[in-house]
């Protein structure tokens, strides 16, 4: 493509105003290694990953800075073939050295390796070939390796301490460049030398600072073109009777489940969990607590649509149905005096607080007394982590494939003894069959084999009820089609529509085209 970029009608194209993360002010931090505090857009728009994973279609990947990858050594080595002719925005070429530097930095500074990729080493085999070695089989971690690690320019980063470097003048390979920064607004313009010819079409992207409150007004007054906000009453505040232009799309991103503490003598009984599940009116929770913005979860917990292939065939069409009579029947053998639980919720999550209230009302109908307790977020983290709760509500992210979700939900190694903080499997599910299926999944690169393992895990979810899925946690995305069209939709879920997901947001931007074309 031409060095000067497109002139003509494109030059008059309006800027896109984006609200990604609630924030009163921005700090000048564009270091993609950072998870907290880094400004949105750093990964995706400025820095890019090796490959792109569509989280809405598990298994669908796209080459990005890497053209392809190849596993060897039983999943302990991966080799990437890199795209040629890509340039950093300062004109220097993008090479294998940059990739090696990026991964070596993660080895040197474990605190930057936030997704726990078990890297052992990185080396450049050729200017366009990079080999990464791992301590263990890492098929399942491909997303963390190539889908979420942003590659940084070695020639600039090697001069800095990557842990504390805030990178105020970022130089990336991505479609946009930072041009303006102030505490309440930063702005990016398109990279004229971007490697995807003719793209991006949106010339300017502006990121004003909005807090959770302010963004509502911003949406109402039409200041924002693209937001990822929870809007309590979306019809009134955002749509305002213009559904053709003021659109939104809330695809499932993970699953919110009721966690029964399996070390509890009563909750460890499957029939009790079954009864609880039968008594809960999930439709009402979705309608009242979640304002109808999401859907009741599939009993396997795997997000639908998108994850159909991972569903066990027997339960493909399974759905929850309230059955009070059956629930009562199941509880016959349990001493009613023991059916008293405390439901722990983080009180800042108001929708969960409301859901807890509904669960309480539902369970009361089958003779289970629930006391809902709202606690501070960190207290909830610590209590659930340590297993000192009866019932709780928690979200598990889907990740780029059901593996992460299932591992986090069911892997017995994550279940720590009560009193020790766990990082997953908070309900403390210990089941050899589940563990084997998780191992099977991780040990293969073959999609069919992976799907089979996932189906096995799904069956366990439905039959044994280690956790009780409630509803999908939605990804929030509001976008106006008055300036640009081409947004993801249920019909064409090519990327997560939320502006706060990276690098998906960049993919969305690259797909936009002016309204009326």
């Amino acid at each position: 493509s031409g060095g000067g970029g497109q002139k003509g009608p494109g030059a008059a194209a309006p800027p896109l105003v984006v609200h990604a993360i609630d924030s009163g002010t921005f700090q000048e931090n564009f270091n993609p290694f950072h998870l907290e505090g880094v400004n949105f857009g750093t990964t995706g728009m400025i820095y890019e990953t090796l490959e792109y994973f569509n989280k809405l279609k598990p298994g669908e990947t796209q080459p990005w800075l890497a053209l392809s990858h190849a596993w060897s050594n039983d999943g302990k080595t991966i080799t990437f073939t890199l795209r040629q002719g890509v340039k950093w925005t300062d004109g220097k070429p993008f090479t294998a050295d940059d990739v090696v530097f990026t991964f070596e930095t993660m080895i040197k500074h474990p605190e930057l390796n936030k997704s726990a990729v078990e890297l052992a080493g990185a080396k450049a085999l050729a200017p366009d070939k990079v080999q990464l070695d791992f301590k263990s089989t890492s098929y399942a971690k491909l997303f963390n390796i190539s889908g979420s690690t942003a590659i940084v320019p070695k020639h600039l980063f090697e001069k800095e301490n990557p842990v504390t470097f805030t990178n105020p003048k970022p130089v990336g390979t991505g479609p946009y460049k930072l041009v303006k920064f102030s505490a309440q607004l930063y702005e990016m313009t398109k990279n004229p030398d971007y490697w995807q010819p003719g793209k991006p079409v949106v010339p300017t992207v502006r990121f004003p600072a909005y807090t959770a409150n302010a963004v509502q007004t911003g949406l109402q007054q039409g200041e924002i073109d693209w937001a990822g906000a929870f809007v309590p009453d979306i019809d009134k505040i955002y749509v305002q009777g213009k559904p053709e232009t003021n659109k939104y799309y809330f695809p499932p991103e993970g699953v919110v489940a009721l966690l029964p503490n399996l070390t509890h003598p009563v909750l460890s009984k499957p029939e009790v969990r079954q009864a609880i599940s039968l008594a809960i009116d999930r439709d009402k929770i979705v309608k009242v607590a979640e304002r109808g913005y999401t859907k009741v979860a599939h009993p396997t917990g795997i997000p639908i649509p998108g994850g159909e292939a991972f569903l066990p065939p027997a339960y493909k069409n399974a759905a929850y149905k309230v059955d009070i009579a059956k629930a009562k029947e199941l509880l016959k053998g349990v001493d009613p005096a023991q059916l008293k639980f405390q439901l722990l919720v983080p009180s800042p999550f108001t929708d969960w607080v409301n859901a807890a209230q509904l669960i309480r009302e539902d369970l009361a109908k089958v003779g289970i007394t629930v006391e809902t307790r709202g606690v501070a977020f960190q207290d909830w983290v610590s209590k659930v982590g340590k297993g000192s709760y009866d019932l709780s509500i928690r979200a598990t992210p889907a990740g780029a494939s059901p593996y992460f979700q299932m591992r986090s939900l069911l892997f017995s190694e994550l279940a720590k003894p009560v009193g020790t903080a766990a990082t997953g499997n908070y309900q403390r599910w210990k089941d050899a069959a589940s563990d084997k299926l998780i191992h099977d999944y991780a040990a293969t690169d073959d999609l069919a084999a992976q799907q089979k393992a996932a189906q096995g895990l799904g069956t366990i979810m439905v039959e044994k009820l280690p956790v009780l899925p409630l509803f999908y946690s939605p990804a929030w995305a509001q976008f106006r089609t008055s300036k640009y069209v081409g947004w993801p939709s249920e019909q064409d879920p090519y990327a997560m529509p939320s502006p706060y997901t990276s690098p998906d947001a960049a993919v969305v931007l690259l797909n936009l085209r002016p309204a009326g074309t």
Partner: protein
Amino acid sequence: MKIRIGAGILVFFALMALAGPLLISADPAATSDAGLQGPSGAHWLGTTQTGQDILTQIVYGSRVSLGVGVLSAVIATAFAIAVGLVGGYFGGAVDEVLSVLTNIFLVLPALPLIIVLAGYLPQRGVASVAVVIAVTGWAWGARVLRAQTLSVRRRDFVEAARASGEGPIRVIFFEILPVLLPVIATSFLATVVGAILAEAGLSFLGLADLSTVSWGSMLYFAQNGQALLIGAWWWFVPPGLCIALIGTGLALVNFGLDEIANPRLRTIKVRKARA
């Protein structure tokens, strides 16, 4: 007059807190399909987004709001009495230390301190919130009480009691304390207002227990539910109004007490002087 209006307001809210839940025995958290309805015959004050009845919430919330207010004021006042009276009565080094402590807590900004403390608080139940508010709210009373004790201590009747052989404890609690009761009442009432406001602020920031219905948590949910933007004034007006009204009631009683002590403060009808 002021006292009467103020006391009327307070009695109203006290009745609401004590007897209200007996009359309206609904669950304040109970949801329904009728979300976001304006005031009507079925829901006198309308409903929240999740269909909770606002009147029920107001009635039950009064318990928490008043409870936190009164509880922390009791704790703070007890502390203020201890510090103020002991320091003021004994004087000397004890007083120096106590009054520096008091002054420190006086200048430290209370709400930020409460926020920070609450931020660390693992359990944000009613009692712990009340304690945190009390911790930051006693200094004002202690300062006033100390100053008053200093002046009362010099009064002849205290000297006289000592001269007739009374011991210090008896002098403090039987001679000085009763005289300070109006001051204590004033500072107690002021602390209640402060504590109710602080609790509301904390809840509004989501730093109190939100699964208990209080006026503050109602405002939190109203704010989170964007009651403002969707024009659901019936959601955020009543709790705020209740807080303000109860504060007004307490303040009116307080000003009334002040006016009894200092009649000059009364508002007066000026009669035309003889022409």
